[in-house]
C-alpha cells in the first residue's frame, strides 16, 4: 500500500509505515482476543503432534526392541546399502588390480517357482577398493552392469558412466582399478591392451591399508505391470579371468565375504541361491552375490522404516484447523458487519488484508514450525526404540523440513484468508481450500490414477506444497518406485512450496482487488 501514484513527502511515508504497524497491531489484538481462535491454533499444534506420533506408533514387526537396527551410513551421512559378495585381499599403500570380466549373468525368482534368466540392469560385477569390511566404509569401484555399461562408482552416491554394452563371452571387458594415494582411477578395455579411463575418485584420508578385490551383487528385479510394480529376488554372477596384481598386496590367499551378512533392503537372495565364489582353472573366479552398493531410497526398496516426513503426517490435521481459522478470520468480519468498523478504522483495504495475512500467516508459521520441531525428535527416538529404522537426514534437510512445515501452514493460512475474502462464505471457502490441498494428495497417492496423472496433480495443485517435507532422495542408479504413492513428489521441495505460495499470493491479490473494488 505504500506505492502511490504521486510521490509523497517522507513524513507522510513514515506515517504510512507506522500506519501499517498500527494496523498490524490492531489485527493481532483482534486475533488473540478471540479465545476460540487461539484455542483452535493451540489445537492445531496438538493434533499435528498427536496424529503424527499416533500414526507412526505401530509396533515393529519383530516385536518390541527386536532389532534396533539402523541403516548403515555412508561417508556423507546418507543411508546406504552395502551388501555384495566380496573376494578380497589386503592392499597396503598403492597398487593396481587388472582383471578380465568374461560374463555377467543373473537369475531372478519371479514367484511360484518360476525363474527368469539374465542380469538385472543394475546388477554389478567388477573391482572394488574398500577401506574396511564395515558397511558404509568409503570405497571406489569400477564395474560392468547388466544394462548400463561400464561404470565407475565411489562412496555410494557417485556414479560415472563408461563405455556401454553388455559383457558376454564373445565381448569380455577388461577392468582396471589403480590406487595412488587417495586417488583411485578406473579404466576399461575391450581387448586388454587399449585402455580408456572410466573415471577417478578422490577418497580423502583413505586408510593406507584397505581391502580390495572382486565383487558381484544384484538388486531385486523390478517388473512394471498395469496393476503396479513388483520386485523379485535376484542374484548376479560375474565370471572373472585371472586377476593381475601390482603393488603392496598381501601374499595370503583370496578370501570371500558376504558384506553386510545379507542382501540389504534393496536386494534379496532367492530360495535356491546364495552368495559365494569359486576359483576356476587358470586362476579365474566366479563370484555370485545379491544386494547393492548404493544409497537407500524410498519405496519398496527402503524396507521397514520411517522417513522424517512420516512423522509429520499430522500436518494434514493441523492444516485443516489452520485453514478454518484463517478463513473465519476474514469471513467472520463479513458476517457480523465488523468489516465496516475495520475499514472505518483503516480505510486502506489492502493494508488491512496485508496485516491480516501477516498475523494469520505468522501464527500458522509458528504452529507448523513448533509442531515439526517437537514431533520429529520424539517420533524418531520412539520409532528407534521400537526397532524401526529411521531414514537419516542431514541437519540442513531437517531444518528445511521444520521451517518448511511452518511455511506450509503459513501459506495455507494466507490461501484460506484470500479465498475467504473472495467467497465471503466461511463454509464454502474452508471446503474449497481443504479440498484443494488434501484431495489432490489423496487422489495422487491412492494408486488409482496412473503415475503420470498423479504427478501432474502434485505439480499444479496446492498439494504440491507438501514436497517441502520430502526427505527421501532419488538416484538414477537405484531402481525403485519414485512415485507420489511412495513419497516422491514431482517437484523439488522449494519448487513445490512455491506452487502453494503462488496460489496463496494469487488468492491474496484477487482478494485485495475485490476488497478495493467493492462496497463492504
Amino acid at each position: 500500500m505504500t506505492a502511490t501514484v504521486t510521490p509523497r513527502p517522507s513524513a507522510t511515508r513514515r506515517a504510512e509505515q507506522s500506519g501499517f504497524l498500527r494496523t498490524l497491531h490492531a489485527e493481532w489484538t483482534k486475533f488473540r482476543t478471540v479465545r476460540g481462535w487461539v484455542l483452535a491454533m493451540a489445537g492445531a499444534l496438538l493434533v499435528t503432534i498427536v496424529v503424527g506420533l499416533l500414526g507412526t506408533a505401530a509396533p515393529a514387526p519383530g516385536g518390541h526392541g527386536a532389532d534396533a537396527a539402523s541403516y548403515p551410513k555412508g561417508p556423507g551421512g546418507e543411508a546406504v546399502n552395502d551388501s555384495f559378495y566380496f573376494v578380497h585381499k589386503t592392499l597396503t599403500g598403492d597398487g593396481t588390480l587388472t582383471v578380465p570380466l568374461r560374463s555377467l549373468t543373473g537369475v531372478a525368482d519371479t514367484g511360484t517357482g518360476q525363474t527368469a534368466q539374465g542380469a538385472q540392469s543394475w546388477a554389478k560385477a567388477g573391482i572394488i577398493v574398500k577401506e574396511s569390511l564395515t558397511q558404509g566404509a568409503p570405497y571406489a569401484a569400477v564395474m560392468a552392469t547388466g544394462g548400463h555399461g561400464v561404470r565407475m562408482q565411489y562412496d555410494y552416491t557417485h556414479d560415472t558412466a563408461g563405455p556401454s554394452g553388455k559383457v558376454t563371452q564373445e565381448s569380455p571387458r577388461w577392468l582396471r582399478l589403480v590406487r595412488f594415494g587417495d586417488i583411485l582411477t578406473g579404466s576399461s578395455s575391450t581387448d586388454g591392451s587399449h585402455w580408456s579411463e572410466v573415471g577417478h575418485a578422490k577418497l580423502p584420508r583413505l586408510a593406507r591399508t584397505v581391502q580390495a578385490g572382486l565383487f558381484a551383487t544384484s538388486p531385486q528385479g523390478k517388473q512394471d505391470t498395469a496393476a503396479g510394480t513388483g520386485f523379485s529376488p535376484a542374484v548376479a554372477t560375474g565370471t572373472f579371468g585371472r586377476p593381475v596384481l601390482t603393488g603392496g598386496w598381501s601374499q595370503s590367499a583370496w578370501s570371500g565375504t558376504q558384506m553386510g551378512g545379507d542382501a540389504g533392503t534393496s536386494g534379496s537372495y532367492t530360495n535356491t541361491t546364495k552368495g559365494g565364489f569359486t576359483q576356476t582353472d587358470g586362476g579365474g573366479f566366479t563370484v555370485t552375490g545379491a544386494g547393492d552398493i548404493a544409497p537407500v531410497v524410498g519405496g519398496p526398496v527402503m524396507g521397514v522404516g520411517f522417513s522424517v516426513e512420516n512423522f509429520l503426517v499430522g500436518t494434514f490435521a493441523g492444516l485443516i484447523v489452520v485453514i478454518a481459522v484463517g478463513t473465519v478470520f476474514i469471513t467472520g468480519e463479513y458476517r457480523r458487519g465488523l468489516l465496516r468498523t475495520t475499514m472505518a478504522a483503516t480505510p486502506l483495504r489492502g493494508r488491512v488484508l496485508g496485516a491480516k495475512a501477516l498475523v494469520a500467516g505468522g501464527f500458522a508459521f509458528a504452529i507448523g514450525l513448533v509442531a515439526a520441531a517437537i514431533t520429529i525428535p520424539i517420533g524418531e527416538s520412539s520409532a528407534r526404540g521400537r526397532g524401526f529404522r529411521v531414514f537419516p537426514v542431514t541437519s540442513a534437510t531437517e531444518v528445511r523440513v521444520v521451517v518448511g512445515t511452518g511455511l506450509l501452514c503459513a501459506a495455507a493460512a494466507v490461501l484460506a484468508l484470500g479465498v475467504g475474502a473472495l467467497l465471503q462464505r466461511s463454509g464454502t471457502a474452508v471446503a474449497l481450500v481443504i479440498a484443494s490441498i488434501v484431495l489432490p494428495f489423496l487422489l495422487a497417492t491412492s494408486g488409482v490414477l496412473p503415475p503420470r496423472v498423479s504427478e501432474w496433480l502434485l505439480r499444479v495443485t496446492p498439494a504440491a506444497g507438501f514436497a517441502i517435507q520430502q526427505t527421501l532422495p532419488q538416484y538414477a542408479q537405484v531402481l525403485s518406485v519414485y512415485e507420489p504413492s511412495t513419497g516422491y513428489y514431482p517437484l523439488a521441495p522449494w519448487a513445490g512450496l512455491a506452487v502453494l505460495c503462488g496460489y496463496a499470493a494469487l488468492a491474496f491479490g484477487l482478494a485485495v482487488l475485490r476488497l478495493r473494488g467493492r462496497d463492504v
Partner: protein
Amino acid sequence: MSLLRSARLTSTADGAWRGGFGRALRAEWTKLRTAGDMGRLLLLAVALTVAVGCGTAKAVKCPDTGCGQDAVKLALTGVTVGQAVIAVLAVLAVSSEYGTGMIRTTLTAVPNRPTVLTAKATVLATAVLISGTAAVLASLLAGRYILPGNGFTEAHGYAPLSLADGSTLRAAVGSVLYLVLIALIGLGVATAVREAATAIGVVLGLLYLFPVVTQVVNDPEWQRHLQQISPMTAGLAVQATVHLHELPIGPWAGLGVLAMWAAAALLVGSLLLHRRDA
C-alpha cells in the same frame, strides 16, 4: 374473537400436509428449494463427480489381460471429489441458519426439535439421493463409453459397464447411499458445532485424515483396522467389484460403518440441539 378464529380456519389449506412432521417436511423442502445456492451446489456436486470420473476413466489404461483394474470403481472415482461438495451443502443447510440467527425462527415455527432435524435430514437425503443417482448413472454411462477405448475390452476381460451386472449395481446403489450418508454426517456435525467453518473442518477431517494416516502406518494389522473404521475408506469399499477378498472390509459392511458414523453424528447433533438454548 370468534370471527378471528374462523378466519384462521379458512386460511388453513393443504390437507395432505396436516401432520406435524409433514408440515415441517414441507417447510424444510421450501427452505431448501428457495435457498438459492443449494441447487447450484447440487449441480456442482453432480458435475464434479461426473467430470472427475470421466477424467479418471480417460487417464487409466488397461494394456493387457489381467491388468488388475476395477473398471467400475474407476468410473466412480468422482464420488471422492463430489462428496466434498455434498458435505458443504449439508453443513450449510444447518450452519447458515445458525449464522444468520434464522434457526430461532425455525424453532419458533416448529418447536419440536427432533422433528426439525428429522425433516431437515429427510429433505436433504432426498435431494442428495436424486442428484447422487444422476451423478452415479452419468459417471457409469461415461465409463461405459470411455473405458473400452483404453483397453477395458471384452478381450481383456472387461464387459461394458452395465447395471445388469450384480456387483456394478451394488457399486452404483452403494455410491448413491454413500453420498446420502456423507450428507447426514455433515448435517449431524453442523447441528452439533453450528459454525460452518468448524463443521466443514470436522467433516473433511473425518473423511480425509484416516486415509492420509493409513499411508504412514507401518503395521499391516493396524493399517487394516484403520481402514475398517475410516468412514471414507470403509464406505467406498461398496464401489469394489473385483478382488473383494482383498478388501479390508466387505462392501455392505463398509457402508454400514459409514452409516454408524452418520448415526453417531446425527445422535450427537440432536442431543445437543435438544439440550441447548437456541
